[in-house]
Protein backbone atom coordinates (compact mmCIF):
# COMPACT_ATOMS: atom_id res chain seq x y z
CA UNK A 1 0.00 0.00 0.00
CA UNK A 2 1.37 3.40 -0.98
CA UNK A 3 1.84 6.04 1.66
CA UNK A 4 0.55 9.60 1.82
CA UNK A 5 2.77 12.13 0.05
CA UNK A 6 2.27 14.75 2.71
CA UNK A 7 2.51 18.31 1.41
CA UNK A 8 4.92 20.62 3.28
CA UNK A 9 2.21 22.76 4.84
CA UNK A 10 4.33 23.43 7.94
CA UNK A 11 7.44 24.36 6.00
CA UNK A 12 10.06 25.90 8.28
CA UNK A 13 7.75 26.22 11.26
CA UNK A 14 7.56 24.87 14.80
CA UNK A 15 5.59 21.77 15.68
CA UNK A 16 4.55 20.58 19.11
CA UNK A 17 3.99 16.90 19.79
CA UNK A 18 1.99 15.81 22.82
CA UNK A 19 3.02 12.30 23.80
CA UNK A 20 1.50 9.96 26.32
CA UNK A 21 3.64 10.79 29.35
CA UNK A 22 2.14 12.87 32.16
CA UNK A 23 4.98 15.36 32.70
CA UNK A 24 3.29 18.11 30.71
CA UNK A 25 0.46 18.19 33.25
CA UNK A 26 2.99 19.73 35.63
CA UNK A 27 4.68 21.83 32.98
CA UNK A 28 1.37 23.53 32.22
CA UNK A 29 0.58 23.80 35.95
CA UNK A 30 -2.65 21.85 35.84
CA UNK A 31 -4.02 21.57 39.40
CA UNK A 32 -3.87 18.15 41.02
CA UNK A 33 -7.61 18.12 41.74
CA UNK A 34 -8.32 18.56 38.03
CA UNK A 35 -5.92 15.73 37.14
CA UNK A 36 -7.51 13.49 39.75
CA UNK A 37 -10.98 14.09 38.31
CA UNK A 38 -9.79 13.06 34.84
CA UNK A 39 -8.08 9.98 36.22
CA UNK A 40 -11.33 8.70 37.72
CA UNK A 41 -13.31 9.69 34.60
CA UNK A 42 -15.28 12.39 36.37
CA UNK A 43 -14.09 14.90 33.77
CA UNK A 44 -13.04 14.45 30.13
CA UNK A 45 -9.45 14.99 28.99
CA UNK A 46 -10.60 18.18 27.25
CA UNK A 47 -10.85 19.86 30.65
CA UNK A 48 -7.07 20.35 30.34
CA UNK A 49 -7.50 22.49 27.23
CA UNK A 50 -7.66 25.96 28.85
CA UNK A 51 -4.35 25.28 30.62
CA UNK A 52 -2.71 24.54 27.28
CA UNK A 53 -3.64 27.87 25.75
CA UNK A 54 -0.07 28.47 24.57
CA UNK A 55 -0.52 25.60 22.10
CA UNK A 56 -3.85 26.77 20.71
CA UNK A 57 -3.53 27.84 17.09
CA UNK A 58 -0.12 26.21 16.72
CA UNK A 59 0.87 23.11 14.77
CA UNK A 60 0.20 20.36 17.27
CA UNK A 61 0.33 16.60 16.81
CA UNK A 62 -1.52 14.65 19.48
CA UNK A 63 -0.26 11.13 19.97
CA UNK A 64 -3.04 8.58 20.51
CA UNK A 65 -5.60 9.87 23.04
CA UNK A 66 -4.21 13.42 23.00
CA UNK A 67 -6.56 14.22 20.11
CA UNK A 68 -9.27 14.52 22.77
CA UNK A 69 -7.60 17.58 24.31
CA UNK A 70 -9.39 19.94 21.96
CA UNK A 71 -10.22 21.01 18.44
CA UNK A 72 -6.89 22.87 18.28
CA UNK A 73 -5.01 19.59 17.83
CA UNK A 74 -4.07 19.52 14.13
CA UNK A 75 -3.02 15.89 13.71
CA UNK A 76 -3.67 12.63 15.56
CA UNK A 77 -0.83 10.10 15.16
CA UNK A 78 -1.38 6.50 16.17
CA UNK A 79 -0.29 2.98 15.26
CA UNK A 80 -1.84 0.61 17.76
CA UNK A 81 -4.70 -1.44 16.28
CA UNK A 82 -6.35 -2.12 19.62
CA UNK A 83 -6.18 1.56 20.52
CA UNK A 84 -7.80 2.37 17.17
CA UNK A 85 -10.58 -0.15 17.75
CA UNK A 86 -11.35 1.48 21.08
CA UNK A 87 -11.25 5.08 19.84
CA UNK A 88 -12.39 4.70 16.23
CA UNK A 89 -15.84 6.27 16.55
CA UNK A 90 -14.61 9.25 18.53
CA UNK A 91 -11.64 9.77 16.22
CA UNK A 92 -13.81 9.80 13.10
CA UNK A 93 -16.87 11.59 14.42
CA UNK A 94 -15.44 14.09 16.89
CA UNK A 95 -11.96 14.91 15.61
CA UNK A 96 -11.75 17.05 12.51
CA UNK A 97 -7.98 17.17 12.02
CA UNK A 98 -5.66 14.88 10.11
CA UNK A 99 -5.47 11.27 11.23
CA UNK A 100 -2.22 9.47 10.44
CA UNK A 101 -1.00 5.96 11.07
CA UNK A 102 1.69 3.56 9.94
CA UNK A 103 -0.27 0.42 10.72
CA UNK A 104 -1.48 -1.26 7.52
CA UNK A 105 -4.20 -3.43 9.10
CA UNK A 106 -5.86 -0.24 10.34
CA UNK A 107 -5.90 1.04 6.76
CA UNK A 108 -7.36 -2.21 5.47
CA UNK A 109 -10.20 -1.87 7.91
CA UNK A 110 -10.88 1.74 6.92
CA UNK A 111 -10.40 1.40 3.15
CA UNK A 112 -13.18 -1.10 2.94
CA UNK A 113 -15.60 1.53 4.09
CA UNK A 114 -15.17 3.11 0.69
CA UNK A 115 -13.57 6.44 1.62
CA UNK A 116 -10.21 7.27 3.07
CA UNK A 117 -10.37 9.18 6.33
CA UNK A 118 -6.96 8.16 7.65
CA UNK A 119 -3.60 8.89 6.03
CA UNK A 120 -1.04 6.15 5.90
CA UNK A 121 2.76 6.27 5.99
CA UNK A 122 4.32 3.02 4.87
CA UNK A 123 7.14 1.74 7.09
CA UNK A 124 10.44 2.19 5.25
CA UNK A 125 12.13 -1.13 4.62
CA UNK A 126 15.47 -1.54 6.33
CA UNK A 127 14.93 1.52 8.49
CA UNK A 128 13.28 0.56 11.71
CA UNK A 129 14.57 3.49 13.74
CA UNK A 130 15.18 7.12 12.84
CA UNK A 131 13.47 9.55 10.45
CA UNK A 132 12.57 8.41 6.95
CA UNK A 133 13.13 11.00 4.24
CA UNK A 134 11.21 9.01 1.62
CA UNK A 135 7.87 10.42 0.51
CA UNK A 136 4.94 8.53 2.00
CA UNK A 137 7.17 6.51 4.28
CA UNK A 138 8.31 6.58 7.87
CA UNK A 139 10.57 4.76 10.22
CA UNK A 140 8.12 2.92 12.40
CA UNK A 141 10.28 3.29 15.51
CA UNK A 142 8.08 1.00 17.55
CA UNK A 143 6.17 3.73 19.30
CA UNK A 144 3.55 6.25 18.25
CA UNK A 145 5.35 9.30 19.64
CA UNK A 146 8.47 8.60 17.65
CA UNK A 147 6.32 7.98 14.56
CA UNK A 148 4.79 11.42 15.12
CA UNK A 149 8.28 12.98 14.84
CA UNK A 150 8.59 11.52 11.34
CA UNK A 151 5.15 12.91 10.47
CA UNK A 152 6.23 16.37 11.63
CA UNK A 153 9.26 16.10 9.35
CA UNK A 154 7.10 15.21 6.33
CA UNK A 155 4.80 18.15 7.01
CA UNK A 156 7.83 20.42 6.89
CA UNK A 157 8.45 21.33 10.56
CA UNK A 158 11.96 22.54 11.39
CA UNK A 159 11.62 22.83 15.15
CA UNK A 160 9.91 20.04 17.06
CA UNK A 161 9.03 20.31 20.73
CA UNK A 162 8.27 17.09 22.57
CA UNK A 163 5.83 17.08 25.47
CA UNK A 164 5.20 13.96 27.52
CA UNK A 165 8.08 12.00 26.04
CA UNK A 166 8.97 10.86 29.53
CA UNK A 167 9.79 7.16 29.42
CA UNK A 168 9.59 7.05 33.20
CA UNK A 169 7.03 7.45 35.92
CA UNK A 170 5.90 10.89 37.11
CA UNK A 171 4.44 10.59 40.61
CA UNK A 172 3.86 6.91 39.88
CA UNK A 173 2.03 7.56 36.60
CA UNK A 174 3.25 6.50 33.16
CA UNK A 175 0.56 8.13 30.98
CA UNK A 176 -1.46 11.33 31.28
CA UNK A 177 -4.69 9.56 30.30
CA UNK A 178 -4.40 6.85 32.96
CA UNK A 179 -2.57 3.56 33.21
CA UNK A 180 -2.60 0.63 30.83
CA UNK A 181 -3.76 -2.75 32.09
CA UNK A 182 -0.20 -4.05 31.91
CA UNK A 183 2.05 -1.80 33.98
CA UNK A 184 5.08 -0.22 32.39
CA UNK A 185 8.25 -2.10 33.16
CA UNK A 186 11.91 -1.26 32.58
CA UNK A 187 11.88 -3.74 29.70
CA UNK A 188 9.06 -1.91 27.93
CA UNK A 189 10.65 1.47 28.58
CA UNK A 190 14.05 0.32 27.31
CA UNK A 191 12.44 -0.99 24.12
CA UNK A 192 10.79 2.36 23.50
CA UNK A 193 14.03 4.22 24.20
CA UNK A 194 15.96 2.41 21.46
CA UNK A 195 14.84 4.56 18.54
CA UNK A 196 15.67 8.00 19.88
CA UNK A 197 19.47 8.12 19.35
CA UNK A 198 18.91 7.35 15.66
CA UNK A 199 16.13 9.93 15.43
CA UNK A 200 18.52 12.51 16.96
CA UNK A 201 21.24 11.58 14.46
CA UNK A 202 18.86 11.83 11.46
CA UNK A 203 17.37 15.10 12.72
CA UNK A 204 20.83 16.64 12.87
CA UNK A 205 21.55 15.58 9.30
CA UNK A 206 18.18 16.92 8.11
CA UNK A 207 18.60 20.24 9.87
CA UNK A 208 15.70 19.69 12.25
CA UNK A 209 15.90 20.84 15.85
CA UNK A 210 14.17 18.61 18.38
CA UNK A 211 13.74 19.72 21.99
CA UNK A 212 12.56 17.61 24.88
CA UNK A 213 10.29 19.73 27.06
CA UNK A 214 10.78 17.58 30.13
CA UNK A 215 13.99 18.04 32.10
CA UNK A 216 13.35 14.73 33.89
CA UNK A 217 12.80 12.62 30.77
CA UNK A 218 14.78 9.43 30.29
CA UNK A 219 15.25 10.40 26.65
CA UNK A 220 18.60 12.14 26.81
CA UNK A 221 19.59 12.58 23.17
CA UNK A 222 17.67 15.83 22.57
CA UNK A 223 18.37 19.16 24.32
CA UNK A 224 16.11 19.47 27.35
CA UNK A 225 14.30 22.73 27.94
CA UNK A 226 11.46 24.01 30.10
CA UNK A 227 8.08 25.24 28.93
CA UNK A 228 9.08 28.80 29.86
CA UNK A 229 12.07 28.53 27.55
CA UNK A 230 9.84 27.27 24.73
CA UNK A 231 7.44 30.17 25.20
CA UNK A 232 10.27 32.73 25.28
CA UNK A 233 11.89 31.18 22.23
CA UNK A 234 8.76 30.93 20.07
CA UNK A 235 7.29 34.28 21.04
CA UNK A 236 10.33 36.20 19.80
Amino acid sequence: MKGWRAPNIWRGSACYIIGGGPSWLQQFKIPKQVIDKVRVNKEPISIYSPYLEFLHGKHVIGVNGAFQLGSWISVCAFMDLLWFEEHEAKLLKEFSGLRVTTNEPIMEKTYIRGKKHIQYFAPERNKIHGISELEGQCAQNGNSGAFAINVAYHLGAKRIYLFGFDMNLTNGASHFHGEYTDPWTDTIINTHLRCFPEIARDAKQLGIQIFNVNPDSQITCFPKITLDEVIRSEEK
Partner: protein
Amino acid sequence: MARTRRAPLEEEEVKLNKAVEDAKEIVQEATPVPSLPKWQFIGGGTLQLKDGQLIDSGSFFFADPSVISTAFMDLMRLIEPGEVKPKYEDNEILDVQMVKREDGLFDIQAGDTVLNEAPLQEGDANNFIASLTSE
Protein backbone atom coordinates in the same frame (compact mmCIF):
# COMPACT_ATOMS: atom_id res chain seq x y z
CA MET B 1 -5.43 -61.13 4.13
CA ALA B 2 -5.37 -57.97 6.15
CA ARG B 3 -4.62 -54.86 4.19
CA THR B 4 -1.74 -52.83 5.46
CA ARG B 5 -1.51 -49.10 5.02
CA ARG B 6 1.84 -47.76 4.06
CA ALA B 7 2.95 -44.22 4.73
CA PRO B 8 2.82 -42.06 1.57
CA LEU B 9 6.09 -41.43 -0.13
CA GLU B 10 7.38 -37.89 0.13
CA GLU B 11 6.58 -37.24 -3.53
CA GLU B 12 3.04 -38.53 -3.08
CA GLU B 13 2.56 -36.41 -0.01
CA VAL B 14 3.59 -33.26 -1.85
CA LYS B 15 1.13 -34.08 -4.67
CA LEU B 16 -1.63 -34.77 -2.16
CA ASN B 17 -1.04 -31.53 -0.30
CA LYS B 18 -1.05 -29.59 -3.56
CA ALA B 19 -4.33 -31.20 -4.60
CA VAL B 20 -5.87 -30.29 -1.24
CA GLU B 21 -4.61 -26.72 -1.54
CA ASP B 22 -5.94 -26.41 -5.09
CA ALA B 23 -9.31 -27.77 -4.08
CA LYS B 24 -9.47 -25.40 -1.15
CA GLU B 25 -8.67 -22.47 -3.43
CA ILE B 26 -11.28 -23.48 -6.01
CA VAL B 27 -14.04 -24.08 -3.48
CA GLN B 28 -13.49 -20.85 -1.63
CA GLU B 29 -12.86 -18.76 -4.77
CA ALA B 30 -16.22 -19.91 -6.10
CA THR B 31 -18.15 -18.77 -3.05
CA PRO B 32 -20.90 -16.59 -4.59
CA VAL B 33 -20.64 -13.61 -2.28
CA PRO B 34 -18.79 -11.07 -4.41
CA SER B 35 -20.03 -8.13 -2.40
CA LEU B 36 -18.03 -9.14 0.66
CA PRO B 37 -14.32 -8.39 1.02
CA LYS B 38 -11.97 -11.20 0.08
CA TRP B 39 -9.27 -12.07 2.61
CA GLN B 40 -6.39 -14.47 3.00
CA PHE B 41 -5.61 -15.90 6.41
CA ILE B 42 -1.84 -15.71 6.72
CA GLY B 43 -1.60 -17.08 10.27
CA GLY B 44 -1.01 -20.67 11.26
CA GLY B 45 -3.59 -23.32 12.22
CA THR B 46 -7.32 -22.94 11.78
CA LEU B 47 -9.37 -19.92 12.74
CA GLN B 48 -13.09 -19.76 13.46
CA LEU B 49 -14.82 -16.53 12.49
CA LYS B 50 -17.67 -15.04 14.47
CA ASP B 51 -20.12 -16.29 11.81
CA GLY B 52 -18.87 -19.84 12.29
CA GLN B 53 -16.68 -20.15 9.17
CA LEU B 54 -13.59 -22.26 9.75
CA ILE B 55 -10.59 -20.81 7.94
CA ASP B 56 -7.44 -22.81 7.33
CA SER B 57 -4.00 -21.30 7.23
CA GLY B 58 -3.26 -19.74 3.85
CA SER B 59 -6.80 -20.05 2.53
CA PHE B 60 -8.87 -17.34 0.88
CA PHE B 61 -12.35 -16.48 2.09
CA PHE B 62 -15.09 -13.88 1.90
CA ALA B 63 -16.29 -12.20 5.08
CA ASP B 64 -17.51 -8.96 6.51
CA PRO B 65 -14.71 -7.50 8.66
CA SER B 66 -17.06 -7.44 11.64
CA VAL B 67 -16.92 -11.25 11.86
CA ILE B 68 -13.12 -11.26 12.13
CA SER B 69 -11.87 -10.92 15.66
CA THR B 70 -9.74 -7.80 16.12
CA ALA B 71 -7.03 -9.90 17.68
CA PHE B 72 -6.57 -11.76 14.39
CA MET B 73 -6.82 -8.78 12.04
CA ASP B 74 -3.02 -8.57 11.82
CA LEU B 75 -3.08 -12.07 10.34
CA MET B 76 -5.47 -11.13 7.53
CA ARG B 77 -4.44 -9.89 4.13
CA LEU B 78 -7.16 -7.98 2.34
CA ILE B 79 -7.23 -9.28 -1.25
CA GLU B 80 -10.26 -7.43 -2.60
CA PRO B 81 -12.12 -4.67 -0.73
CA GLY B 82 -15.65 -5.76 -1.67
CA GLU B 83 -18.60 -3.69 -0.60
CA VAL B 84 -19.29 -3.44 3.06
CA LYS B 85 -22.07 -1.45 4.59
CA PRO B 86 -20.28 1.60 5.99
CA LYS B 87 -19.98 1.61 9.73
CA TYR B 88 -20.51 5.36 9.66
CA GLU B 89 -22.37 7.60 7.26
CA ASP B 90 -20.08 9.94 5.36
CA ASN B 91 -21.76 12.97 6.84
CA GLU B 92 -21.00 11.68 10.33
CA ILE B 93 -17.25 11.73 9.76
CA LEU B 94 -15.30 14.95 10.15
CA ASP B 95 -12.57 15.80 7.67
CA VAL B 96 -10.39 18.78 6.87
CA GLN B 97 -11.74 21.31 4.42
CA MET B 98 -10.44 23.97 2.05
CA VAL B 99 -11.70 27.43 2.98
CA LYS B 100 -11.34 30.62 0.94
CA ARG B 101 -9.95 33.59 2.83
CA GLU B 102 -10.90 37.26 2.40
CA ASP B 103 -7.60 37.91 0.59
CA GLY B 104 -8.48 35.31 -2.05
CA LEU B 105 -6.02 32.72 -0.80
CA PHE B 106 -7.00 29.46 0.87
CA ASP B 107 -6.61 27.69 4.20
CA ILE B 108 -6.88 24.03 5.03
CA GLN B 109 -9.09 23.94 8.08
CA ALA B 110 -9.83 21.27 10.64
CA GLY B 111 -12.91 22.73 12.28
CA ASP B 112 -11.77 26.19 13.41
CA THR B 113 -8.07 25.28 13.31
CA VAL B 114 -6.01 26.34 10.31
CA LEU B 115 -3.52 23.59 9.48
CA ASN B 116 -1.27 25.42 7.04
CA GLU B 117 1.56 27.68 8.19
CA ALA B 118 1.05 30.19 5.37
CA PRO B 119 -2.03 30.83 3.18
CA LEU B 120 -2.15 28.65 0.08
CA GLN B 121 -2.83 29.36 -3.56
CA GLU B 122 -5.96 27.63 -4.83
CA GLY B 123 -3.91 25.05 -6.74
CA ASP B 124 -1.84 24.14 -3.68
CA ALA B 125 -4.94 23.87 -1.51
CA ASN B 126 -6.60 21.67 -4.13
CA ASN B 127 -3.49 19.51 -4.27
CA PHE B 128 -3.55 19.10 -0.51
CA ILE B 129 -7.18 17.98 -0.47
CA ALA B 130 -6.53 15.70 -3.45
CA SER B 131 -3.55 14.13 -1.66
CA LEU B 132 -5.87 13.04 1.15
CA THR B 133 -8.05 10.98 -1.11
CA SER B 134 -5.55 9.64 -3.65
CA GLU B 135 -3.93 6.24 -3.34
